[in-house]
Protein backbone atom coordinates (compact mmCIF):
# COMPACT_ATOMS: atom_id res chain seq x y z
CA UNK A 1 0.00 0.00 0.00
CA UNK A 2 1.29 3.46 -0.83
CA UNK A 3 2.15 5.66 2.08
CA UNK A 4 0.64 8.80 0.69
CA UNK A 5 -1.30 10.79 3.17
CA UNK A 6 -4.12 12.49 1.39
CA UNK A 7 -6.61 14.10 3.68
CA UNK A 8 -9.81 14.34 1.72
CA UNK A 9 -12.43 16.86 2.67
CA UNK A 10 -14.84 13.96 2.44
CA UNK A 11 -13.83 12.96 5.93
CA UNK A 12 -15.57 15.91 7.58
CA UNK A 13 -18.09 14.92 10.25
CA UNK A 14 -20.79 17.40 11.22
CA UNK A 15 -23.27 16.88 13.99
CA UNK A 16 -26.02 19.40 14.73
CA UNK A 17 -28.45 19.39 17.63
CA UNK A 18 -28.45 15.63 17.82
CA UNK A 19 -30.86 14.19 20.38
CA UNK A 20 -31.46 10.53 21.06
CA UNK A 21 -34.23 9.17 23.24
CA UNK A 22 -34.39 5.39 23.45
CA UNK A 23 -37.82 3.86 23.77
CA UNK A 24 -38.22 0.29 24.88
CA UNK A 25 -41.80 -0.45 25.80
CA UNK A 26 -42.99 2.02 28.40
CA UNK A 27 -39.53 3.17 29.39
CA UNK A 28 -37.73 6.01 27.70
CA UNK A 29 -34.06 6.83 28.16
CA UNK A 30 -32.77 10.22 27.26
CA UNK A 31 -29.33 9.25 25.99
CA UNK A 32 -28.08 12.27 24.06
CA UNK A 33 -29.18 15.84 24.47
CA UNK A 34 -28.67 18.39 21.73
CA UNK A 35 -25.17 17.46 20.71
CA UNK A 36 -23.33 19.56 18.15
CA UNK A 37 -19.76 19.34 16.94
CA UNK A 38 -17.70 19.36 13.78
CA UNK A 39 -14.68 17.23 13.10
CA UNK A 40 -12.42 18.47 10.31
CA UNK A 41 -11.27 15.84 7.84
CA UNK A 42 -8.26 13.79 8.85
CA UNK A 43 -8.45 14.51 12.56
CA UNK A 44 -8.27 11.97 15.34
CA UNK A 45 -11.02 12.71 17.84
CA UNK A 46 -11.82 10.81 21.01
CA UNK A 47 -15.11 10.82 22.87
CA UNK A 48 -14.99 10.27 26.63
CA UNK A 49 -17.62 10.46 29.32
CA UNK A 50 -19.06 8.56 32.27
CA UNK A 51 -20.46 5.11 31.72
CA UNK A 52 -23.95 5.12 30.28
CA UNK A 53 -23.78 8.72 29.08
CA UNK A 54 -24.59 7.79 25.52
CA UNK A 55 -21.23 7.32 23.81
CA UNK A 56 -22.25 4.11 22.12
CA UNK A 57 -25.60 5.64 21.24
CA UNK A 58 -23.74 8.48 19.54
CA UNK A 59 -21.56 6.07 17.60
CA UNK A 60 -24.52 3.98 16.49
CA UNK A 61 -26.02 7.16 15.06
CA UNK A 62 -22.77 8.19 13.41
CA UNK A 63 -22.43 4.86 11.57
CA UNK A 64 -26.07 4.76 10.51
CA UNK A 65 -27.10 1.80 12.66
CA UNK A 66 -29.67 3.83 14.58
CA UNK A 67 -32.09 6.66 13.90
CA UNK A 68 -31.82 9.83 15.92
CA UNK A 69 -34.84 11.31 17.61
CA UNK A 70 -33.94 14.69 16.19
CA UNK A 71 -30.97 16.56 14.81
CA UNK A 72 -28.72 16.33 11.81
CA UNK A 73 -25.73 14.27 10.97
CA UNK A 74 -23.52 14.66 7.94
CA UNK A 75 -20.37 13.00 6.76
CA UNK A 76 -18.68 14.71 3.83
CA UNK A 77 -21.63 17.08 3.63
CA UNK A 78 -24.10 14.23 3.00
CA UNK A 79 -26.59 12.99 5.59
CA UNK A 80 -26.03 9.54 7.04
CA UNK A 81 -29.13 7.52 6.10
CA UNK A 82 -27.89 4.02 6.93
CA UNK A 83 -24.75 1.93 7.11
CA UNK A 84 -22.36 2.93 4.36
CA UNK A 85 -19.09 1.07 4.86
CA UNK A 86 -17.51 2.57 1.75
CA UNK A 87 -17.75 5.96 3.44
CA UNK A 88 -17.72 5.04 7.11
CA UNK A 89 -15.80 2.08 8.57
CA UNK A 90 -16.86 0.66 11.92
CA UNK A 91 -14.96 -1.20 14.63
CA UNK A 92 -16.74 -2.40 17.76
CA UNK A 93 -15.51 -3.31 21.21
CA UNK A 94 -15.71 -6.99 20.38
CA UNK A 95 -14.00 -7.93 17.14
CA UNK A 96 -17.26 -9.58 16.00
CA UNK A 97 -15.52 -11.68 13.39
CA UNK A 98 -17.53 -14.42 11.68
CA UNK A 99 -16.10 -17.58 13.25
CA UNK A 100 -16.77 -19.70 10.15
CA UNK A 101 -14.63 -17.48 7.93
CA UNK A 102 -10.86 -17.12 7.82
CA UNK A 103 -9.32 -13.77 8.65
CA UNK A 104 -9.03 -13.00 4.95
CA UNK A 105 -12.63 -13.94 4.20
CA UNK A 106 -13.73 -11.82 7.13
CA UNK A 107 -11.94 -8.84 5.67
CA UNK A 108 -13.43 -9.60 2.26
CA UNK A 109 -16.94 -9.81 3.71
CA UNK A 110 -18.02 -6.20 3.14
CA UNK A 111 -16.67 -6.43 -0.41
CA UNK A 112 -18.54 -9.66 -1.07
CA UNK A 113 -21.72 -7.98 0.15
CA UNK A 114 -21.23 -5.48 -2.66
CA UNK A 115 -20.61 -8.22 -5.25
CA UNK A 116 -17.09 -7.06 -5.95
CA UNK A 117 -15.10 -9.42 -8.19
CA UNK A 118 -13.10 -12.11 -6.43
CA UNK A 119 -9.84 -10.76 -7.76
CA UNK A 120 -10.44 -7.24 -6.60
CA UNK A 121 -11.59 -8.53 -3.20
CA UNK A 122 -8.44 -10.52 -2.73
CA UNK A 123 -6.19 -7.62 -3.60
CA UNK A 124 -7.96 -5.24 -1.27
CA UNK A 125 -8.12 -7.74 1.58
CA UNK A 126 -4.42 -8.47 1.23
CA UNK A 127 -3.59 -4.77 1.35
CA UNK A 128 -5.78 -4.23 4.39
CA UNK A 129 -4.31 -7.22 6.23
CA UNK A 130 -0.83 -6.00 5.38
CA UNK A 131 -1.68 -2.58 6.76
CA UNK A 132 -2.56 -4.08 10.13
CA UNK A 133 0.49 -6.35 10.01
CA UNK A 134 -1.36 -9.65 9.58
CA UNK A 135 -0.58 -10.60 5.99
CA UNK A 136 0.82 -13.91 7.25
CA UNK A 137 -2.36 -14.83 9.08
CA UNK A 138 -5.01 -14.54 6.40
CA UNK A 139 -5.80 -18.25 6.42
CA UNK A 140 -6.33 -18.51 10.16
CA UNK A 141 -9.75 -18.76 11.68
CA UNK A 142 -10.69 -16.24 14.38
CA UNK A 143 -10.33 -18.80 17.17
CA UNK A 144 -6.76 -19.36 16.05
CA UNK A 145 -5.88 -15.69 16.62
CA UNK A 146 -5.14 -13.76 19.80
CA UNK A 147 -7.54 -11.09 21.03
CA UNK A 148 -5.28 -8.34 19.70
CA UNK A 149 -4.96 -10.02 16.32
CA UNK A 150 -8.71 -10.44 16.10
CA UNK A 151 -9.18 -6.76 16.71
CA UNK A 152 -6.61 -6.01 14.02
CA UNK A 153 -8.59 -8.12 11.58
CA UNK A 154 -11.66 -6.18 12.62
CA UNK A 155 -9.84 -2.93 11.88
CA UNK A 156 -8.70 -4.30 8.52
CA UNK A 157 -12.32 -5.15 7.76
CA UNK A 158 -13.37 -1.64 8.77
CA UNK A 159 -10.91 0.05 6.42
CA UNK A 160 -10.83 -2.44 3.53
CA UNK A 161 -13.03 -0.18 1.40
CA UNK A 162 -10.84 2.78 2.20
CA UNK A 163 -13.60 4.79 3.93
CA UNK A 164 -12.95 8.42 4.74
CA UNK A 165 -13.98 8.00 8.34
CA UNK A 166 -13.29 5.25 10.84
CA UNK A 167 -15.65 5.05 13.81
CA UNK A 168 -14.54 2.96 16.77
CA UNK A 169 -16.46 2.10 19.93
CA UNK A 170 -13.98 1.16 22.67
CA UNK A 171 -12.09 -1.02 20.20
CA UNK A 172 -9.36 -1.95 22.67
CA UNK A 173 -11.43 -2.26 25.83
CA UNK A 174 -11.38 -6.06 25.74
CA UNK A 175 -7.58 -6.20 25.49
CA UNK A 176 -4.96 -6.29 28.23
CA UNK A 177 -3.07 -3.10 28.99
CA UNK A 178 0.11 -3.91 27.09
CA UNK A 179 -1.68 -5.10 23.96
CA UNK A 180 -3.83 -2.05 24.24
CA UNK A 181 -0.85 0.30 24.13
CA UNK A 182 0.68 -1.54 21.21
CA UNK A 183 -2.64 -1.38 19.38
CA UNK A 184 -2.86 2.35 20.07
CA UNK A 185 0.50 2.95 18.39
CA UNK A 186 -0.57 0.67 15.58
CA UNK A 187 -3.75 2.64 15.07
CA UNK A 188 -1.80 5.91 15.02
CA UNK A 189 0.51 4.46 12.38
CA UNK A 190 -2.46 3.41 10.22
CA UNK A 191 -4.13 6.77 10.75
CA UNK A 192 -0.98 8.65 9.75
CA UNK A 193 -0.54 6.50 6.65
CA UNK A 194 -4.11 6.73 5.46
CA UNK A 195 -5.19 10.20 6.54
CA UNK A 196 -8.62 9.04 7.66
CA UNK A 197 -10.79 10.85 10.12
CA UNK A 198 -11.02 8.74 13.28
CA UNK A 199 -13.77 8.95 15.89
CA UNK A 200 -12.66 6.94 18.88
CA UNK A 201 -14.88 6.20 21.88
CA UNK A 202 -12.97 5.16 24.99
CA UNK A 203 -13.14 4.93 28.75
CA UNK A 204 -9.46 5.55 29.15
CA UNK A 205 -8.51 9.19 29.49
CA UNK A 206 -4.84 8.35 28.97
CA UNK A 207 -5.65 6.58 25.74
CA UNK A 208 -7.84 9.44 24.57
CA UNK A 209 -5.19 12.09 25.21
CA UNK A 210 -2.34 9.96 23.90
CA UNK A 211 -4.03 9.27 20.56
CA UNK A 212 -6.09 12.34 19.77
CA UNK A 213 -6.04 15.78 18.21
CA UNK A 214 -9.21 16.65 20.08
CA UNK A 215 -11.09 15.12 22.97
CA UNK A 216 -14.86 15.56 23.31
CA UNK A 217 -16.07 15.25 26.90
CA UNK A 218 -19.67 14.17 27.44
CA UNK A 219 -21.65 14.74 30.62
CA UNK A 220 -23.55 12.05 32.49
CA UNK A 221 -26.87 11.07 30.93
CA UNK A 222 -28.39 12.73 29.04
CA UNK A 223 -25.05 13.19 27.30
CA UNK A 224 -24.14 16.77 26.47
CA UNK A 225 -20.81 18.04 25.27
CA UNK A 226 -19.27 19.76 28.24
CA UNK A 227 -15.83 20.37 26.80
CA UNK A 228 -13.76 20.03 23.70
CA UNK A 229 -10.07 19.92 24.41
CA UNK A 230 -7.38 20.42 21.79
CA UNK A 231 -4.41 18.19 22.43
CA UNK A 232 -1.41 20.11 21.15
CA UNK A 233 1.15 17.58 22.25
CA UNK A 234 3.80 16.90 19.59
CA UNK A 235 3.63 13.85 17.33
CA UNK A 236 4.86 11.20 17.08
CA UNK A 237 3.63 10.60 20.60
CA UNK A 238 5.75 8.49 22.89
CA UNK A 239 5.10 6.58 26.04
CA UNK A 240 7.20 9.04 28.11
CA UNK A 241 4.80 11.76 27.12
CA UNK A 242 2.08 10.17 29.23
CA UNK A 243 3.99 11.11 32.36
CA UNK A 244 4.81 14.67 31.31
CA UNK A 245 3.38 17.54 33.36
CA UNK A 246 1.34 18.80 30.42
CA UNK A 247 -0.25 15.41 29.81
CA UNK A 248 -1.18 14.96 33.45
CA UNK A 249 -2.62 18.44 33.59
CA UNK A 250 -4.93 17.70 30.68
CA UNK A 251 -5.96 14.41 32.19
CA UNK A 252 -6.77 16.01 35.53
CA UNK A 253 -8.82 18.67 33.81
CA UNK A 254 -10.94 16.09 31.98
CA UNK A 255 -11.33 13.96 35.06
CA UNK A 256 -12.48 16.94 37.09
CA UNK A 257 -15.14 17.70 34.48
CA UNK A 258 -16.42 14.16 34.30
CA UNK A 259 -16.51 13.91 38.09
CA UNK A 260 -18.42 17.11 38.68
CA UNK A 261 -20.66 17.10 35.62
Amino acid at each position, binding site marked *: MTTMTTVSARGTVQVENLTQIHRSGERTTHALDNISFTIPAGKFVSVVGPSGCGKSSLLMLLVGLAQSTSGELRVAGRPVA*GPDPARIGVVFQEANLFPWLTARKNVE*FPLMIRNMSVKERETKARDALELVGLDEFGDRYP*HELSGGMRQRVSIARGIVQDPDVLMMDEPFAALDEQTRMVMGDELLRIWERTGKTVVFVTHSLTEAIYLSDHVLVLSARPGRIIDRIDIDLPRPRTFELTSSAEFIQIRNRIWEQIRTA
Partner: protein
Amino acid sequence: MVCPTAKTTRRIIVLILLACWELLPRLGVIPSLFLPPLTLTAAALFSEFSVYWQHLLVTLQEVGAALFFACGGGILCGMLLGSSTRLRRLLLPVVSSAYAIPLVVLYPLFTAWFGIGMQSKVVFASVYGFLPTLLGAAAGIQTIDRSLMMTARSMGASPVQQIRYVLLPATMPTVLSSLRIGGALVIVGVVVSEMLTSTAGIGFLISRYRTMLDSPRVFAAILLVLMLAILFDLLVQFAERRFTGWKKNVPAKTFP
Protein backbone atom coordinates in the same frame (compact mmCIF):
# COMPACT_ATOMS: atom_id res chain seq x y z
CA MET B 1 -8.32 -33.62 16.00
CA VAL B 2 -8.55 -37.40 15.59
CA CYS B 3 -5.18 -38.80 16.40
CA PRO B 4 -4.35 -42.11 14.73
CA THR B 5 -4.14 -44.02 17.99
CA ALA B 6 -7.73 -43.15 18.89
CA LYS B 7 -8.88 -44.23 15.45
CA THR B 8 -6.99 -47.50 15.66
CA THR B 9 -8.34 -48.11 19.14
CA ARG B 10 -11.88 -47.60 17.88
CA ARG B 11 -11.33 -50.06 15.06
CA ILE B 12 -9.88 -52.61 17.42
CA ILE B 13 -12.90 -52.29 19.70
CA VAL B 14 -15.26 -52.86 16.77
CA LEU B 15 -13.24 -55.90 15.67
CA ILE B 16 -13.29 -57.34 19.19
CA LEU B 17 -17.08 -56.91 19.36
CA LEU B 18 -17.52 -58.63 16.02
CA ALA B 19 -15.23 -61.45 17.11
CA CYS B 20 -17.25 -61.88 20.33
CA TRP B 21 -20.43 -62.01 18.27
CA GLU B 22 -18.96 -64.90 16.30
CA LEU B 23 -17.11 -66.74 19.03
CA LEU B 24 -19.30 -66.53 22.14
CA PRO B 25 -22.20 -68.52 20.62
CA ARG B 26 -19.79 -70.86 18.83
CA LEU B 27 -18.04 -71.67 22.09
CA GLY B 28 -21.38 -72.20 23.79
CA VAL B 29 -20.93 -69.29 26.19
CA ILE B 30 -24.21 -67.86 24.93
CA PRO B 31 -26.92 -70.14 23.50
CA SER B 32 -27.23 -69.43 19.79
CA LEU B 33 -30.96 -68.97 20.19
CA PHE B 34 -30.13 -65.79 22.16
CA LEU B 35 -27.27 -64.73 19.94
CA PRO B 36 -26.63 -66.57 16.67
CA PRO B 37 -23.05 -66.31 15.39
CA LEU B 38 -22.26 -63.44 13.07
CA THR B 39 -21.63 -65.73 10.10
CA LEU B 40 -25.01 -67.45 10.49
CA THR B 41 -26.69 -64.06 10.76
CA ALA B 42 -24.94 -62.82 7.63
CA ALA B 43 -25.88 -66.04 5.83
CA ALA B 44 -29.54 -65.52 6.74
CA LEU B 45 -29.33 -61.98 5.46
CA PHE B 46 -27.85 -62.97 2.10
CA SER B 47 -29.99 -66.04 1.51
CA GLU B 48 -33.13 -63.92 1.76
CA PHE B 49 -31.73 -60.70 0.55
CA SER B 50 -34.65 -59.82 -1.70
CA VAL B 51 -37.12 -60.12 1.19
CA TYR B 52 -34.97 -57.93 3.42
CA TRP B 53 -34.41 -55.46 0.63
CA GLN B 54 -38.11 -55.13 -0.06
CA HIS B 55 -38.87 -54.47 3.60
CA LEU B 56 -35.86 -52.20 3.99
CA LEU B 57 -37.24 -50.02 1.21
CA VAL B 58 -40.49 -49.63 3.13
CA THR B 59 -38.62 -48.68 6.28
CA LEU B 60 -36.42 -46.25 4.37
CA GLN B 61 -39.42 -44.51 2.88
CA GLU B 62 -41.03 -44.18 6.28
CA VAL B 63 -37.81 -42.90 7.82
CA GLY B 64 -37.34 -40.42 4.99
CA ALA B 65 -40.84 -39.01 5.28
CA ALA B 66 -40.71 -38.89 9.08
CA LEU B 67 -37.28 -37.19 8.97
CA PHE B 68 -38.75 -34.54 6.74
CA PHE B 69 -41.59 -33.78 9.12
CA ALA B 70 -39.77 -34.29 12.43
CA CYS B 71 -36.54 -32.53 11.56
CA GLY B 72 -37.83 -30.02 9.03
CA GLY B 73 -40.73 -29.04 11.25
CA GLY B 74 -38.83 -29.43 14.50
CA ILE B 75 -35.91 -27.29 13.41
CA LEU B 76 -38.14 -24.62 11.91
CA CYS B 77 -40.46 -24.42 14.91
CA GLY B 78 -37.52 -24.66 17.31
CA MET B 79 -35.85 -21.71 15.66
CA LEU B 80 -39.00 -19.64 15.73
CA LEU B 81 -39.55 -20.53 19.35
CA GLY B 82 -35.94 -19.96 20.32
CA SER B 83 -35.62 -16.57 18.68
CA SER B 84 -38.71 -15.01 20.24
CA THR B 85 -38.59 -14.41 23.96
CA ARG B 86 -42.34 -14.13 24.17
CA LEU B 87 -43.04 -17.37 22.32
CA ARG B 88 -40.39 -19.09 24.38
CA ARG B 89 -41.94 -18.03 27.68
CA LEU B 90 -45.38 -19.00 26.45
CA LEU B 91 -44.72 -22.35 24.81
CA LEU B 92 -41.49 -23.84 26.06
CA PRO B 93 -42.94 -25.12 29.37
CA VAL B 94 -45.79 -26.75 27.46
CA VAL B 95 -43.40 -28.34 24.99
CA SER B 96 -41.15 -29.61 27.77
CA SER B 97 -44.09 -31.21 29.56
CA ALA B 98 -45.37 -32.75 26.34
CA TYR B 99 -41.91 -34.20 25.87
CA ALA B 100 -42.36 -36.22 29.06
CA ILE B 101 -45.38 -38.13 27.67
CA PRO B 102 -44.39 -41.69 26.75
CA LEU B 103 -45.61 -41.57 23.17
CA VAL B 104 -45.34 -45.30 22.56
CA VAL B 105 -48.45 -45.95 24.67
CA LEU B 106 -50.36 -43.74 22.27
CA TYR B 107 -49.31 -45.79 19.26
CA PRO B 108 -52.56 -47.86 19.20
CA LEU B 109 -54.38 -44.57 18.70
CA PHE B 110 -52.20 -43.78 15.71
CA THR B 111 -53.06 -47.09 14.09
CA ALA B 112 -56.74 -46.48 14.79
CA TRP B 113 -56.50 -43.10 13.09
CA PHE B 114 -54.08 -43.83 10.26
CA GLY B 115 -54.38 -47.59 9.70
CA ILE B 116 -51.59 -50.14 10.01
CA GLY B 117 -49.80 -49.14 6.80
CA MET B 118 -46.98 -46.68 6.30
CA GLN B 119 -48.96 -43.61 7.31
CA SER B 120 -49.26 -44.51 10.97
CA LYS B 121 -45.50 -45.20 11.14
CA VAL B 122 -44.62 -41.90 9.51
CA VAL B 123 -46.97 -39.95 11.75
CA PHE B 124 -45.82 -41.72 14.89
CA ALA B 125 -42.11 -41.35 14.13
CA SER B 126 -42.60 -37.72 13.12
CA VAL B 127 -44.31 -36.90 16.38
CA TYR B 128 -41.76 -38.96 18.28
CA GLY B 129 -38.79 -37.08 16.79
CA PHE B 130 -40.42 -33.67 16.58
CA LEU B 131 -40.27 -32.39 20.15
CA PRO B 132 -36.66 -33.27 21.00
CA THR B 133 -35.56 -31.77 17.69
CA LEU B 134 -37.55 -28.65 18.44
CA LEU B 135 -36.07 -28.32 21.92
CA GLY B 136 -32.55 -28.82 20.57
CA ALA B 137 -33.03 -26.23 17.85
CA ALA B 138 -34.62 -23.75 20.25
CA ALA B 139 -31.66 -24.04 22.62
CA GLY B 140 -29.13 -23.87 19.80
CA ILE B 141 -30.53 -20.78 18.16
CA GLN B 142 -30.16 -18.88 21.42
CA THR B 143 -26.42 -19.40 21.44
CA ILE B 144 -26.06 -17.46 18.21
CA ASP B 145 -24.18 -14.24 18.70
CA ARG B 146 -26.64 -11.51 17.79
CA SER B 147 -23.93 -8.91 17.42
CA LEU B 148 -22.81 -10.73 14.26
CA MET B 149 -26.06 -9.71 12.60
CA MET B 150 -25.51 -6.10 13.62
CA THR B 151 -21.95 -6.30 12.33
CA ALA B 152 -23.19 -7.53 8.97
CA ARG B 153 -25.72 -4.73 8.92
CA SER B 154 -23.00 -2.19 9.68
CA MET B 155 -21.22 -3.45 6.58
CA GLY B 156 -24.25 -2.78 4.44
CA ALA B 157 -25.70 -6.29 4.27
CA SER B 158 -29.33 -6.38 3.17
CA PRO B 159 -31.78 -8.47 5.21
CA VAL B 160 -31.51 -11.27 2.66
CA GLN B 161 -27.72 -11.15 2.79
CA GLN B 162 -27.81 -11.14 6.58
CA ILE B 163 -29.82 -14.35 6.52
CA ARG B 164 -27.77 -16.00 3.83
CA TYR B 165 -24.28 -15.08 4.96
CA VAL B 166 -24.70 -14.82 8.73
CA LEU B 167 -27.82 -16.51 10.05
CA LEU B 168 -27.50 -19.65 7.93
CA PRO B 169 -23.86 -20.43 8.66
CA ALA B 170 -24.35 -19.51 12.31
CA THR B 171 -27.32 -21.86 12.67
CA MET B 172 -25.72 -24.73 10.76
CA PRO B 173 -24.25 -26.42 13.86
CA THR B 174 -27.64 -26.23 15.56
CA VAL B 175 -29.40 -27.62 12.52
CA LEU B 176 -27.01 -30.54 12.26
CA SER B 177 -27.07 -31.43 15.93
CA SER B 178 -30.87 -31.25 15.90
CA LEU B 179 -30.87 -33.46 12.83
CA ARG B 180 -28.74 -35.96 14.71
CA ILE B 181 -31.12 -36.06 17.68
CA GLY B 182 -34.22 -36.19 15.49
CA GLY B 183 -32.81 -38.73 13.05
CA ALA B 184 -31.91 -41.24 15.73
CA LEU B 185 -35.37 -40.92 17.27
CA VAL B 186 -37.14 -41.21 13.94
CA ILE B 187 -35.38 -44.49 13.22
CA VAL B 188 -36.38 -45.78 16.65
CA GLY B 189 -39.95 -44.57 16.12
CA VAL B 190 -40.32 -46.22 12.74
CA VAL B 191 -38.80 -49.56 13.74
CA VAL B 192 -40.68 -49.78 17.04
CA SER B 193 -44.01 -48.97 15.43
CA GLU B 194 -43.34 -51.54 12.73
CA MET B 195 -42.65 -54.09 15.44
CA LEU B 196 -45.93 -53.30 17.18
CA THR B 197 -48.52 -53.41 14.42
CA SER B 198 -47.73 -53.53 10.75
CA THR B 199 -47.53 -55.51 7.54
CA ALA B 200 -44.13 -54.48 6.23
CA GLY B 201 -40.76 -53.02 7.17
CA ILE B 202 -37.66 -54.20 8.99
CA GLY B 203 -39.39 -53.91 12.37
CA PHE B 204 -42.17 -56.12 11.04
CA LEU B 205 -39.58 -58.74 10.00
CA ILE B 206 -37.98 -58.61 13.43
CA SER B 207 -41.21 -59.37 15.22
CA ARG B 208 -42.38 -61.97 12.67
CA TYR B 209 -39.13 -63.96 12.82
CA ARG B 210 -39.07 -63.63 16.57
CA THR B 211 -42.44 -65.34 16.92
CA MET B 212 -40.96 -68.09 14.72
CA LEU B 213 -37.92 -68.23 17.05
CA ASP B 214 -35.72 -67.85 13.98
CA SER B 215 -32.84 -66.08 15.69
CA PRO B 216 -30.44 -65.71 12.73
CA ARG B 217 -33.15 -63.94 10.73
CA VAL B 218 -34.11 -61.73 13.67
CA PHE B 219 -30.50 -60.70 14.08
CA ALA B 220 -30.07 -60.17 10.36
CA ALA B 221 -32.91 -57.64 10.54
CA ILE B 222 -31.42 -56.05 13.66
CA LEU B 223 -28.12 -55.80 11.80
CA LEU B 224 -29.85 -53.85 9.06
CA VAL B 225 -31.32 -51.43 11.59
CA LEU B 226 -27.89 -50.94 13.13
CA MET B 227 -26.40 -50.28 9.71
CA LEU B 228 -29.15 -47.80 8.95
CA ALA B 229 -28.45 -45.90 12.16
CA ILE B 230 -24.71 -45.91 11.56
CA LEU B 231 -25.15 -44.78 7.97
CA PHE B 232 -27.30 -41.91 9.10
CA ASP B 233 -24.76 -40.89 11.71
CA LEU B 234 -21.96 -41.00 9.14
CA LEU B 235 -23.97 -38.74 6.84
CA VAL B 236 -24.49 -36.21 9.62
CA GLN B 237 -20.81 -36.42 10.55
CA PHE B 238 -19.86 -35.79 6.96
CA ALA B 239 -22.12 -32.75 6.83
CA GLU B 240 -20.67 -31.53 10.11
CA ARG B 241 -17.14 -31.73 8.75
CA ARG B 242 -18.20 -30.07 5.56
CA PHE B 243 -20.25 -27.21 6.99
CA THR B 244 -19.12 -26.68 10.56
CA GLY B 245 -15.45 -27.58 10.39
CA TRP B 246 -14.70 -24.16 11.83
CA LYS B 247 -16.48 -25.19 15.03
CA LYS B 248 -13.76 -27.56 16.11
CA ASN B 249 -11.54 -26.03 18.75
CA VAL B 250 -13.88 -23.10 19.22
CA PRO B 251 -14.26 -22.78 22.96
CA ALA B 252 -17.88 -23.56 23.75
CA LYS B 253 -19.93 -20.48 24.47
CA THR B 254 -21.58 -20.42 27.84
CA PHE B 255 -25.09 -21.75 27.59
CA PRO B 256 -27.74 -19.14 28.38
